């Protein structure tokens, strides 16, 4: 979907070159938009790539600045979701964005064992999209109630959500008012 810089002489950024060398199959594609590099990683290699990027003295991406899910329903066929990782290296003052695709009800390796800071952010991605993170120590909903009936940030959920289900949930909680007729 992104605007690719045109021309055959597209320079590969050094991190892509290093990743290709180390994990020949890992880099599916990369693009640069407004000077920001995005590297799409094959989900099977994600964990190994993250460990490498954190520990290798050349990169030292010790800070997982942000992790979020994206529902790609209207932009492409498969896979349905993207998990987006924004990495930052304090030592080298570098930023990097990784992406990995996940099928609906599919799963991707959790990065919480690598960066403990991924814990709640992965729980939020699960809460909002239903993306399952393999190896997460405690994958539960975080912002919504534990028994909530939908994953609200999916593109096939309307902004107001399923109000009948929501009312049912409220009445189960003993809330006397009904919002819908």
């Amino acid at each position, binding site marked *: 979907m992104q605007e690719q810089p045109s021309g055959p002489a597209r320079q590969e950024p050094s991190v892509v070159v290093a990743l290709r060398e180390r994990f020949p199959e890992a880099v599916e594609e990369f693009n640069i938009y407004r000077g920001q590099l995005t590297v799409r990683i094959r989900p099977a290699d994600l964990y190994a790539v993250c460990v490498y990027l954190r520990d290798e003295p050349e990169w030292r991406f010790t800070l997982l600045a942000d992790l979020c899910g994206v529902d790609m329903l209207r932009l492409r066929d498969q896979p349905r979701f993207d998990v987006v990782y924004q990495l930052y290296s304090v030592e080298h003052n570098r930023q990097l964005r990784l992406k990995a695709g996940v099928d609906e009800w599919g799963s991707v390796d959790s990065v919480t064992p690598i960066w403990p*800071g991924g814990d709640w952010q992965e729980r939020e991605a699960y809460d909002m999209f239903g993306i399952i993170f393999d190896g997460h120590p405690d994958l539960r909903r975080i912002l919504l109630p534990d028994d909530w009936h939908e994953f609200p940030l999916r593109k096939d959920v309307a902004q107001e959500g399923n109000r009948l289900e929501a009312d049912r949930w409220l009445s189960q909680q003993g809330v006397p008012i009904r919002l819908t007729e």
Partner: protein
Amino acid sequence: MTSSLIPSRGTEIEITEEQQVDDVHRLITLNMGPQHPSTHGVFRVVLDLEGEVIVNARPVMGYLHRGVEKLFENHRYPQIIPWTDRTDYAAAPNNNLGLCMAIEKLCGVEVPERAEYFRVILAELSRISSHLLWLGTHALDIGALSMVLYTFREREMILDLFDKFGGARLTTNIMEIGGFTRDIPDGWLDELREFVKIFPSRQADYVDLLSANPIWLNRTKGIGIITAEDAQAYSLTGPMIRGSGVAYDIRKARPYLVYDRLDWEVPIGENGDTYDRYLVRMEEMRQSLSMIEQCLDQMPSDGPFLARESNYVQPPHLASQYNAEDMQRHFVWTIKGPRPPRGEVYVATEGPKGEIGFYIISDGSSVPYRIHYRAPSFVNLQILPKLAQGAMLADVVALIGTIDIVLGDVDR
């Protein structure tokens, strides 16, 4: 009645066999919050206690969840700015700035120099006001009751300045894509100079109140120690990571606006405890004030305040009232909204609580395909269970205070 409204969040309080058998070492489960004054909102921690020592802390949140990211996806870009006020409502201008900068980066809009200086002024004022709120309530929680009266006095001056420029004290909605549509009101800068003049003496008063206060020192020194490695591993940002001695400040690491033209320093702590984070935030207020002072000196007194970029930026209010072409532009801009090119950006700015990140995916329409708001309070709060383990029950209040959370930001 009230209890039936709450239960389905993490109420699964498990009592293990061990707990049932051994009455002497039985763990007591204590529910702190969601209606607890020192959780700064509706935040709940379920604590397993052995005597007064915390064995396990389980944070439960989401009581204030309004689904802002879903709302972001269903509004046009300029309509989203007011929503960002309502996330971290203690420092709304910083959130406005984060979103506006992300949209400007996505569209490639250049903001005029004068507006950049003014943005720095507003962002730093907002940082001081957020730190004042933090200092007052943190000291209040710990036992220095009078502190909040003094910090709120100065915070009120800042909120008055916001009110006079933008028309609101808390939910400021103070920035626009491309700069500002309104000019600075007459006398506003003089009032700001007045504040800059008196604030240092007021801050010295705070230090006098706290630095020799044995309760304050005993309850902050050596409490909640975070090592530099842990701070990075747990994705901490802002004063939380700097208190642990990591000099990561986005304003220095990747200077935006005019931060690279100002003379300032990044304060860092040594021990990574609650007291160090207090020192860091106090010094940050001094640095912010000096930045405001420098901006006042360097800011051009006249010049454009809004980018001239017809596709993405609305025309200035006055121009659209007197000029037919600008009025048409304003109409189209309001009804249809700007349509950024297809692409994605992640823009991080340094908020008072940490990294405020906006990740925008645009599909070329006037409504964003996805905006993810990286909330500093939410990510920083993750370390609470680790800090609370092995601490005393009374320390939880100090720990929540030192992380500096706003529940609107945690729950979104």
